[in-house]
């Protein structure tokens, strides 16, 4: 059987439409899969002309074209094999890693592997589809649907069976049993939820037990006299060294405290947690540019002012500082705070000002905190008050 042979294998319950083109104009009939005749909707304004006659493809009628299409498809499959080989070659030829090979400034290994694999797969895919389009039998066939809905007798019988079953179980007559059953099955959801209880401690437990320094939503590692240090670098900041317009991304000295062996005191998860609440932005502006906030008159040092770096919206770190306007922008959702005016929100979805860290200088002239923040840092939560 040649690939273009459209004839159906014997025994298939299908019809090849178009074999009788121009079905009768008055309520055309289409033979169905069981060989019966189902009348087609006749109330349409125009009678159904039936499926159009099958039209042959050039490859069906011209053996030369057929041969060519065959070679075309086979060519694609061969080319795919070539690219698979190239894939293997480039796997072994190109170095990877930080100093791997590059082609046109792109990573050689990734690009060649991707291209070879991709092109090989595309050639196989396109080849198969082209085979189907040009050479496989392309007669549309028609198949009858079975109604998704059962016949009426079936439905009545089923409903009756259900009714009898329900009746015999007595579920309707014995509400006590029914309701207690529902109650007990429903209550099974409770163990499922309770089992999840030990996923973590509650906020209250963490806050009261203080398993590590600054534990709990309302606390951080900041404490009276703790130096403000440059984030990542870890060096303390001398107040006199900062110039007007400076922005320091800073954090608490506790994060860079080391023991005698030079190892960090705060490590692992505790360090991550401390690190996620402690960061501050320290800026210096003209002292008279700072609007006074009641009760915070002594929280700045010579125009040096520090605010929590954690956005009060959903907690992104925020340090896109505009020196001229003293506005700081959050890159996640664009909340904008005015650092000269108590870090109040001037734009965007945040609702609360950034918490301010009270600053002072120690004997050596380095910036230190006067205390922990006087409110929780980061996003709002229910118990925040």
């Amino acid at each position, binding site marked *: 059987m040649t690939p273009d042979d459209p004839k159906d294998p014997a025994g298939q319950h299908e019809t090849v439409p178009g074999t009788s083109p121009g079905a009768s104009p008055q309520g055309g009939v289409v033979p169905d899969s069981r060989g019966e005749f189902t009348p087609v909707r006749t109330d349409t304004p125009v009678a159904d002309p039936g499926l159009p006659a099958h039209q042959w493809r050039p490859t069906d*009628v011209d053996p030369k074209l057929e041969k060519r299409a065959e070679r075309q498809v086979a060519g694609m499959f061969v080319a795919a094999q070539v690219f698979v080989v190239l894939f293997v070659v480039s796997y072994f030829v190109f170095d990877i890693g930080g100093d*791997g090979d*590059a082609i046109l400034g792109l990573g*050689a290994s990734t690009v060649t592997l991707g291209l070879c694999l991709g092109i090989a797969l595309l050639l196989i895919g396109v080849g198969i589809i082209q085979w189907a389009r040009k050479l496989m039998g392309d007669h549309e066939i028609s198949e009858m649907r079975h109604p998704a809905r059962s016949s009426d007798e079936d439905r009545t019988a089923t409903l009756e069976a259900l009714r009898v079953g329900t009746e015999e179980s007595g579920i309707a007559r014995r509400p006590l049993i029914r309701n207690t059953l529902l109650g007990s099955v429903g209550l099974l959801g409770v163990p499922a939820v309770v089992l999840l209880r030990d996923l973590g401690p509650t906020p209250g437990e963490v806050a009261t037990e203080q398993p590590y320094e600054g534990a709990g939503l309302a606390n951080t590692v900041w404490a009276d006299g703790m130096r403000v240090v440059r984030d990542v670098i870890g060096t303390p900041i001398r107040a006199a*060294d900062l110039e007007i*317009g400076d922005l320091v991304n800073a954090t608490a000295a506790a994060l860079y405290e080391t023991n005698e062996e030079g190892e960090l005191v705060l490590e692992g998860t505790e360090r991550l947690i401390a690190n996620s609440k402690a960061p501050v932005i320290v800026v210096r502006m003209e002292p008279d540019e700072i609007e006074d906030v009641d009760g915070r008159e002594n929280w700045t040092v010579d125009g040096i002012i520090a605010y929590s770096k954690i956005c009060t919206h959903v907690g992104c770190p925020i340090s896109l500082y505009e*020196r001229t306007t003293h506005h700081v922008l959050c890159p996640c959702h664009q909340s904008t705070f005015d650092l000269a005016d108590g870090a109040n929100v001037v734009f965007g979805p945040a609702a609360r000002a950034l918490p301010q860290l009270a600053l002072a200088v120690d004997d050596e002239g380095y910036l230190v905190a006067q205390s922990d923040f006087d409110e929780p840092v980061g996003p709002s939560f229910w118990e925040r008050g």
Partner: protein
Amino acid sequence: MRLLNRTAGRLSRHRRRPVAGLLVLLLGLFATGTFYAAFAPAQAETTASDAAQVEEGRELFLIGCAFCHGTNGEGVLTESGTQYGPALAGVGAAAVDFQVGTGRMPLVQPGQQAPRKPVIYSQDEIDALGAFVASLGPGPAVPEESEYSVEGLSAEEQEEAVVRGGEIFRTNCTACHNFDGAGGAMPRGGYAPSLKGVEPKYIYEALLTGPQSMPTFSNGNLTPEDKADVIAYLQESEEQPTYGGFGLGSMGPVAEGLFAWVVGIGGLVGFAIWIAAHSTRSLKQKGTTE
């Protein structure tokens, strides 16, 4: 930080030497001191040429800058009291070198942002302008190459500088300039410009002087070595191949989403249309050509 020894050539091609920088600085200081102490006539000569340069700068300033910054760089206020052009006393020659050297000044028109444009002054003219502005008040001078270069360090130290610079960069710079230095949006139409292809000198000057709305990173804030490390990291990331193929502008997930829809879904829907499209048909009936 523990570092592995590496001999790969790519990393060290553009390394610069801060130690040498320090050396040059010391030499410069020494030389200056010597000039002052020993060679009085030479001193007079230098002052004379300095004065000439300041005078040349003043003339250029009066033509090109005074309209906004005032004839003595005192700044001009608008009627509503906002700054038209800021006062320039104390901004230093470094600010002038950055602003004029990158074409940001003179401005075409006042606005939220001074964009980078083709430079219209020669380097000599820029130096003269810088000398004039520096004479208005003490400010940061134009840095020597040795200050912002890590060349001269050992390969291992250079590698360490890149790692450290990356950490400092991600802490202080990426928030505005994006993880790849591709730039980002700022409030009210402003933007942090792209850092790609910017000369190390200008990056150093920008850190030092805080152009437009950028905060300053004075030497008391980030030490010169810190700044040199950041520059080393930026140089290194520009030299790296983009390992994963084309970078899509390094704009993050928005650009990636755009490509997924346009190239990915667009391409695949195109394929779907081709797969379902009817192939060409013939007028002939089967068997007629045989």
